[in-house]
């Protein structure tokens, strides 16, 4: 009974916090509708219901994450980066190859949390709508998730080796710039956007725990300097994978066309 009570109290506070986050948007929209636009909102009742769904849904989502996933995820991140776990299988702490479970964990957790990221779902739905189905929402989400998986594996490798963050980011930017020149223009805007949406509610808390635990465990790393950067990686690499996917599809269509022309001759 006590635990039931705790649940209700917790949910109440998360609901209050979620509402507080929505409040500025609410004030802004009401102010503009009443004072500047002076127009009624179409389907007001439905929109309001949608707003209630969003606040309640997000509060339930966060509450569930905090009860179920974050504690386990954080314990896992600390346990996997615990020196005694790494040394248990006869590995040396100073060798970067000893941390293979960390890289695998980072990649898998990056992929799976990105699939469940609500902001990415929103952008993918919109992209599917706008492109009249030529961009599949699932295809986009999986491509982005692969990017995050790669980003986190590389990001944890960087923390272990202690190589400077900016070198990786600069190299990533160069790749994006070169890809932008060659990629089909249609997908560029969505690719850029997919970088910013990957890291929010689900991914950030788990990734932060991983970065902090790892920079504490590896000898010679300073959590204040080396613990950062995973989120930056996760916002950069999806751009590369989405652009890469667009290039691949364009190439495939071109080869297909060539083949048809050849057959015709």
């Amino acid at each position, binding site marked *: 009974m006590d635990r039931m009570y705790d649940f209700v109290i917790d949910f109440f506070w998360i609901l209050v916090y979620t509402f507080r986050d929505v409040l500025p948007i609410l004030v802004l929209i009401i102010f503009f509708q009443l004072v500047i636009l002076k127009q009624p909102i179409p389907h007001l009742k439905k929109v309001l219901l*949608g707003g209630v*769904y969003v606040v309640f849904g997000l509060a339930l989502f966060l509450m569930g994450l905090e*009860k179920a996933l974050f504690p386990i995820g954080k314990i896992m991140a600390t346990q996997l980066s615990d020196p005694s776990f790494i040394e248990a299988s006869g590995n040396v702490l100073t060798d970067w190859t000893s941390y293979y479970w960390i890289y695998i964990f980072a990649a*898998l957790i990056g992929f799976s949390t990105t699939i469940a990221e609500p902001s990415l779902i929103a952008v993918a739905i919109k992209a599917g709508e706008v492109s009249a189905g030529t961009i599949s929402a699932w295809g986009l989400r999986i491509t982005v998730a692969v990017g995050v998986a790669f980003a986190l594996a590389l990001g944890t490798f960087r923390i272990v080796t202690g190589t400077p963050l900016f070198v990786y980011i600069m190299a990533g*930017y160069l790749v994006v710039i070169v890809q932008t020149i060659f990629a089909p223009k249609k997908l560029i805007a969505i690719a850029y956007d997919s970088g910013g949406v990957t890291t929010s509610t689900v991914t*950030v808390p788990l990734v932060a725990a991983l970065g902090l635990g790892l920079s504490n465990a590896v000898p010679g790393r300073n959590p204040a300097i080396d613990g950062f950067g995973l989120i930056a990686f996760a916002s950069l690499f999806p751009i590369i994978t989405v652009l890469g996917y667009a290039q691949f599809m364009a190439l495939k269509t071109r080869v297909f066309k060539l083949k048809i022309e050849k057959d015709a001759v």
Partner: protein
Amino acid sequence: MKYRAYILDVSKKLWAAVTDLVPIIVVVVFFQIVVIQQPFPQIGEVIVGILFVIIGLMLFIEGLEIGLFPIGEAMAYALAKKGSLLWLMIFSFALGFSTTVAEPALIAVAKEASVISSDAGLISNDHKTMKGYALGLRLAVAFSVGLAIVIGVLRILKGWPLYYLIIGGYVLVMLMTSIAPKEIIGLAYDAGGVTTSTITVPLVTALGVGLATVIKGRSPLLDGFGLIAFASLLPMVFVMAYGLFWF
């Protein structure tokens, strides 16, 4: 009959939410059992939590489609119809600024930044200076997100190609990196990713796509997206500039 269709609809949406979460559950179970080799702590609470996540995600997505997307688009149409550039700019700035300044992730990052900076001896160690530093950082980031949405909306109106602006932004980030204090760089890079919250993203996306749909000569696919990209790029520049300004 209507009732049955309703149940079918809800169960379909629930199933979609379940598939979204299957990967996380598989990964967590795999690591707990195979790698860490320990039983699950508080299994009951975990199962209840997962049910919450599934129902929450389903409600959120439903709310997105009937609430957030329509309101974002309705605002875009109404503002475009009003034809006042000034009000559109004010709305864009306020949307970016107000949703970012109170963002919990940003508050946490700003606080951490003040600790790092005082540990590194860049700012003095007293409570008041650190608090002022954290608040200033939050305002700088919120301002940069507001400005980012304004630039992004202007781009949609004028039809400037997105990649020029983004690549220009990258060059700016690279230049700032070479002169910014090295303690702030990691933080600045991360700041870009944490600023865009779960409620802001759908609204901003709907605003962009809505504007690109009503304005003649703009394609929703080419021009409607890109606002989020600005909102994750500009904070990096501003956080590094803030670091330079203080030290």
